[in-house]
């Protein structure tokens, strides 16, 4: 069936900020969908609150709204844009939920908007647990025994009927928030009540626990002609009980016979038909009892998901792109497979390699939280590795995680780990279980014993045992012969051992191993990912490395050389690897922009990355894609084959930047800012001298190589000091330290985070305004792209604080000086490309806090706010263009305000306080744009799921220093008709200043009144500013409750100011929506994107 003709304008919803459970995979799917639909001539309206996405680039959709993803805002956009259809299946759970709401409240009917991809009834059937269960049974399949409960009485009845262990799953939540496994009455009470709270429908499913069963996932696609294909099967290493996002997974499924696999395939076909997903992708999860093969259906997502991104990257089959085409009427056989060009998309990919996905956790950011895994997802990112064997892929994945392991190595001596600990770590799923399997084997446990304790399939454990056997053989040979000869050396590489791993075993530098290896002719070969196991010729150069005989990238390179008349210059762009807090989608955005713009300039672009969620690992983005870990060895292997003219290291975050030194030493042509300049900015002493030479103020500082040195310097500088390790991102382990004792605690942690690197000690400038600047420089001329004023005072990590562009409280003189300083620093450092500077403004004095000669987290935000595509321009400058070649505005006079707000993952980590500090904790960001600051701020809060109340009761409790300042705010709140409650101390100050306020007891003061009020929805906003070291405060429980009951909670005075400002604005005028394209048209410079392309 060809394209539908009754559709012209399609509304596409994105998934909003990056949160745990919903990350850049939806930028990947949404961007693919936008491009595919635009290609077909449809007019696309896009809504997404996340400025760091590629999909919100103004040239991807026709009308791009960076607005809150709420039913109200989307309704307003529908009212303005009048789309005829809405495609809700590509923006994760967020998009699905909003579309459902808009259907239910009649908005879609009112404006005549049709749901395409999946309709209301279908989504309802798949999402509503009761309906889903019925559908599964109708399809002749099994589900675990279960019952629904809406009250605790119903819940207890179900628990008695089914018996422990039980699993509790709340309906309509993201990534399993609020669920859990219970073995006792006590656990049951806690988890069941929490689950009901977090469910949109106050409903939980209580079911037979199938913990320990084998878990599988199938990615299914269906078209309007009822053709169905399975794109990929996935088997989880961690058995049932661990959220699939937190499991190590492998594709394709390994331990199913064809007969069992086909039963699962038949079940998937039956289910997608029964649920009625008309077109598009779905994923279906199954559990299989390892003892008898009994198969039950766990759940189904009637939309593209994290797993479909993984499946797309694992097979080369672009699920989201095809899902979009199917939604507008095409059938699978009418779509060509891009890779083979000859064959249609109505087939099932055959793969001839093994794919391993490993989750990236950041428990180190939340020391109070345990690293125990369960049905609620906790990982913040993932890496995918491809190898010809599971052993190779597993070791590649582990080194790709960048958690200090260079493979399946030992970070600690297994002999030091007590047996009980090993048993516990095997039994209780946790972030490092895979390593404990090895420790257990080293201690002499058998494969069967480990399988018994962990319930991990012995197939996986035996492969780990094989890696260990190889390691032992290597150790033996190294011990006796001091060297490695060809066959064993090669076998070690086939087993995925990294050069670094072998170097550690031999006690020599990694470079020695690399040299020996190359001398022996043991060279990585690259194979193509081609969807068809080499049955057809592949045209899309998507490669992974392995140790085999034939190198297909060499063959492809030769072919390309022969076919083109003039050789093109090649640029390698190094990506950022797995997402983590501090390094995420913003860097992927920059990498994509570099690839897109340099491809346009005629370069051959080569992307290297290991993160399957990203747009950068879409083979459409660059000319060649290498899906590889970002380590020195893996990057050098690519350099050896590609021999690029330039390598970009400044766009992928700290990961590639950390490789810059070694790459440069190995003769790799790094383009853009030189390695020396990078060092000058990173090396505190050199940097400090450099800044002094420029006569720019900086806080007193020192860098210390030992605890004693640190203590001495801190005493000289004077507490409080800001202490941090060097060469890290996201303020890892950064602290504001008030005394020597805390400094020494910090020192031991810092050494773990960044071993061998000095620790930086800065005087902490208290009560200063922090300013972030992004700039582009060619070394002689600099363009200041954006100046952002932080809402929170200096001391809170820039990644966690809200900021506004343009600044709204800083004088023009100071701004002019910030610009001048920025240019002098950029030119002094000889920056070629992007640069980010953090300043602190105290009174009329400006201090430089930090300079990063690389892409920063705020580059996409600045680009969206100003319409100037900074990453693209900087990439061109790195390749030789000058700033003056672009028509850049001297003074960008923005008529609108843009506010960036961060999104924090606290609800995932129970027991963690939500107070912000110098260590970054946010997973993502949102943007609010409006013609005035107040509205922009309100939007940003709404985007971050902190809906400021229009009426109601505000709780106020502030530290002593801020009590005076709060009086004025409290008065304004009273004027706006809010009622106030406060703790004793705060209330006293307010009352003596004539503000009417009720007193409420803190948690510890016996009554529990405040907690009760929060639980019963009597508090609508919390302003709680704790003192510097207040994490032990009683109010911690209050803040935890705020998270749980989703009451907006503001923890800084500046945040409170901005909020009250916004609330006032919100009360006097209705909210507005406006597309980026309209904002840009409203600017004095017309058509910014095109205008800045070239001068």
């Amino acid at each position, binding site marked *: 069936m060809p394209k539908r003709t009754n559709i012209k304008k399609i509304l596409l919803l994105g998934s909003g900020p990056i949160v745990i459970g919903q990350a850049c995979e939806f930028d990947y799917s949404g961007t693919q969908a936008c491009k595919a639909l635009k290609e077909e001539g449809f007019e696309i309206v896009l809504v997404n609150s996340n400025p760091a996405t590629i999909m919100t680039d103004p040239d991807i959709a026709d009308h791009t709204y960076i607005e809150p993803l709420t039913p109200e805002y989307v309704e307003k956009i529908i009212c303005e844009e009048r789309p005829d259809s809405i495609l809700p299946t590509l923006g994760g759970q967020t998009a699905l939920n909003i579309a459902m709401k808009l259907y239910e409240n009649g908005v879609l009917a009112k404006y005549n908007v049709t749901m395409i991809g999946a309709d209301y009834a279908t989504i309802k059937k798949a999402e509503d647990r009761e309906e889903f269960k019925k559908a599964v049974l109708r399809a002749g399949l099994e589900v675990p025994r279960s019952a629904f409960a809406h009250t605790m009485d119903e819940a207890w009845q179900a628990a008695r009927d089914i018996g422990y262990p039980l699993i509790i799953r709340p309906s309509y939540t993201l990534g399993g928030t609020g669920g859990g496994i219970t073995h006792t009455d006590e656990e049951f009470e806690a988890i069941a009540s929490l689950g009901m709270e977090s469910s949109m429908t106050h409903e939980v499913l209580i079911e037979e626990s199938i913990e320990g069963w084998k878990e599988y996932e199938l990615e299914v696609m269906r078209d309007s*002609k*009822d*053709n169905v*294909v*399975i794109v990929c099967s996935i088997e989880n290493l961690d058995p049932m009980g661990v959220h699939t996002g937190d499991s190590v997974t492998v594709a*394709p*499924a*390994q*331990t*199913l*016979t*064809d*007969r*069992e*696999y*086909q039963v699962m*395939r*038949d079940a998937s076909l039956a289910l997608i038909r029964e649920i009625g997903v008309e077109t598009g992708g779905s994923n279906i999860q199954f559990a299989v009892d*390892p*003892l*008898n*093969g009994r198969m039950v259906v766990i759940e189904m997502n009637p939309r593209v998901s994290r797993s479909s991104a993984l499946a797309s990257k694992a097979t080369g089959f672009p699920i989201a792109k095809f899902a979009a085409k199917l939604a507008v009427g095409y059938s*699978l*056989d009418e779509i060509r497979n891009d890779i083979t060009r*000859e*064959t*249609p998309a*109505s*087939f*099932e*990919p*055959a*793969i*001839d*390699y*093994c794919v391993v996905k490993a989750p990236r956790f950041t428990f180190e950011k939340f020391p109070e939280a345990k690293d125990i895994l369960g049905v609620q997802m906790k990982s913040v990112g993932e890496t995918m590795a491809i190898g*010809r*064997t*599971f052993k190779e892929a597993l070791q590649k994945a582990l080194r790709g995680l960048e958690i200090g392991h260079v493979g399946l190595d030992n970070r600690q001596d297994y002999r030091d780990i007590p047996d009980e600990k090993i048993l516990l770590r095997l039994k209780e799923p946790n972030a490092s279980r895979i390593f404990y399997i090895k420790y257990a084997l080293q201690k002499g446990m058998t*494969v069967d014993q480990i399988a018994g304790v962990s319930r991990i*399939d*012995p*197939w996986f454990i*035996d492969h780990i045992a*094989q890696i260990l056997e190889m390691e032992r053989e290597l150790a033996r040979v190294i011990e006796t012969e001091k060297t490695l000869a060809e066959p064993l050396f090669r076998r070690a590489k086939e087993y995925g051992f990294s050069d670094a791993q072998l170097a550690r075993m031999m006690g020599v530098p990694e470079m020695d191993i690399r040299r020996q290896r190359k001398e022996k002719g043991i060279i990585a070969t690259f*194979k193509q990912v081609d969807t*068809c*196991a*080499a*049955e*057809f*010729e592949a045209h899309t150069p998507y490669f992974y490395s392995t140790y*085999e*005989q*034939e190198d*297909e990238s060499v063959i492809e390179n030769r072919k390309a050389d022969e076919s083109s008349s003039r050789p093109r210059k090649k640029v390698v762009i190094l990506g950022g690897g797995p997402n983590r807090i501090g390094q995420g989608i913003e860097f992927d955005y920059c990498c994509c922009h570099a690839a897109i713009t340099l491809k346009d300039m005629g370069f051959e672009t080569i992307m290297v990355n290991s993160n399957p969620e990203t747009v950068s690992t879409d083979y459409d983005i660059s000319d060649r894609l290498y899906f590889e870990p970002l380590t020195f060895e893996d990057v050098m292997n690519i350099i050896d084959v590609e021999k690029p003219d330039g390598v970009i290291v400044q766009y992928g975050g700290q990961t590639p930047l950390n490789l810059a030194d070694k790459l440069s030493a190995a003769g790799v042509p790094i383009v853009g800012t030189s390695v020396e300049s990078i060092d000058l900015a990173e090396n505190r002493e050199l940097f400090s001298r450099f800044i002094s030479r420029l006569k720019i103020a900086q806080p007193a500082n020192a860098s210390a190589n030992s605890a004693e040195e640190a203590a001495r310097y801190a005493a000289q500088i004077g507490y409080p000091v800001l202490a941090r390790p060097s060469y890290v991102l996201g303020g890892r382990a950064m602290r504001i330290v008030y005394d020597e004792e805390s400094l020494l605690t910090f020192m031991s942690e810092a050494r773990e985070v960044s071993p061998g690197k000095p620790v930086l000690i800065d005087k902490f400038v208290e009560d200063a305004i922090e300013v972030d600047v992004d700039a582009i420089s060619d070394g002689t001329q600099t363009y200041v792209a954006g100046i952002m004023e932080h809402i929170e005072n200096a001391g809170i990590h820039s990644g966690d604080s809200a900021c506004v562009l343009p600044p709204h409280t800083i004088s023009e003189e100071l701004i002019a000086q910030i610009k001048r300083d920025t240019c002098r620093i950029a030119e002094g450092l000889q920056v070629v490309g992007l640069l980010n500077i953090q300043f602190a403004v105290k009174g009329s004095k400006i201090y430089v806090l930090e300079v990063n000669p690389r892409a920063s987290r705020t580059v996409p935000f600045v680009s969206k706010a100003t319409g100037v595509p900074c990453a693209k321009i900087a990439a061109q400058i790195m390749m030789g263009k000058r700033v003056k070649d672009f028509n850049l505005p001297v003074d960008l006079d923005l008529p609108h305000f843009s506010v960036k707000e961060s999104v924090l993952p606290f609800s995932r980590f129970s027991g963690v306080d939500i107070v912000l500090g110098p260590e970054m904790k946010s997973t993502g960001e949102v943007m609010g744009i409006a013609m005035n600051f107040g509205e922009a701020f309100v939007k940003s809060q709404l985007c971050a799921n902190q809906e400021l109340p229009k009426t109601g009761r505000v709780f106020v409790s502030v530290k002593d220093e801020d009590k005076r300042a709060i009086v004025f705010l409290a008065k304004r709140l009273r004027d706006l008709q809010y009622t106030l409650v406060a703790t004793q101390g705060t209330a006293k100050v307010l009352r003596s200043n004539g503000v009417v306020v009720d007193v409420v007891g803190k948690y510890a003061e016996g009554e529990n009144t405040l907690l009760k009020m929060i639980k019963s929805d009597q508090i609508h906003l919390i302003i709680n500013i704790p003192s510097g070291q207040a994490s032990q405060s009683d109010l911690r429980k209050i803040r935890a409750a705020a998270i749980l009951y989703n009451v907006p909670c503001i923890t800084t005075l500046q945040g409170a100011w901005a909020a009250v400002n916004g609330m006032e604005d919100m009360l006097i005028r209705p909210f507005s929506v406006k597309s980026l394209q309209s904002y840009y048209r409203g600017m004095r410079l017309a058509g910014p994107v095109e205008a800045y392309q070239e001068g």
Partner: protein
Amino acid sequence: MKEAILYLEDGTSFIGRTLGTPGETAGEVVFNTAMTGYQEILTDPSYAGQIVVMTYPLIGNYGVNAEDAESNGVHVKGFVVKEFCRRHSNFRADQSLIDYLDQHHIIAMEGIDTRKLTRHLRQRGAMKGLISTDDFNPESLAGKIARVPAMAGSDWVKEVTAKEKYVWPADASFGAPGYRVAALDCGIKFNILRILSRLGCEVHVFPARSTYEQIMAVQPAGLFLSNGPGDPAALDYVIKTVRQFIGTLPIFGICLGHQILGLALGGQTYKMKFGHHGANHPVQDMRDSRIGITSQNHGFCVDLETLPKDEVELMALNLNDRTVEGISHRKFPLYSVQHHPEAAPGPHDAQYLFREFIAMMKQHKNHSQP
């Protein structure tokens, strides 16, 4: 563990190792892209005379069990993989694949770049190959390989057909009395028999050399032409027999059976470059345009142009390379498919074709018994 060589007709060689049986074996080298189902592949009689290369690199993961065999023996001449699984895991497994291959004296090789080999076969076409653990001398290997008969023109059916007629009874679970089907065994897979049996058929399995009279003696309601190995054109004796049935009994053919029917209807077959061996090919049923994902295993193909257009029509088409996947007759109750609706291994999308055979027999019976 012993070093082994795979030597190809064109002089290319691959060094690997064999874990079990040593020695020498030769055959046509073909690759299979199915990611599961190695046991079914090993026991499929259609692979007689062939050395099978699995493109999925990890083979043996779930061991071998008693239920998944497609015949009573292993028919491949040799088996080539990237890596054999040392420790299998599956609740139905009876033994490891390595032990099983050893028990059946199959020379199996691992540790070679199977993707390179596959690309080579794709570009140059399927060719003869020889695996040896003793002889690594290219000249001597070239001499040996020259003496191996080519697949084109070879009758491999005689090696795998039933020695004597036997009966596969109808499944007891099928309540009503079903049809009696005569199956001409050119190397029939058990799953065809299992499915017909589940649909109530009592299948009389005849050796390939059985005559029209011998078959008609059991008064079958329909004739089934099985899959099998080798070149269909070399099977003049079967083609002749089948020709006698056209127009008298409903006929359903699969794979080699389809090619034989094509030849019996006056058409020709040709050898494909490297054939289709896998479980992921899209096939469109021309009657309703529906697409099914099919199991494939063939190196020869029916040439539609050579068939009488007024009698035979295209029933199914391979969407990857647009080759013939099925034919039917405008007048007589007969049809055949090139792919494997019985799957094993592979998807079950085309199993409806068996039910159509039942329907065809029913209709034919109603017509012939007024």
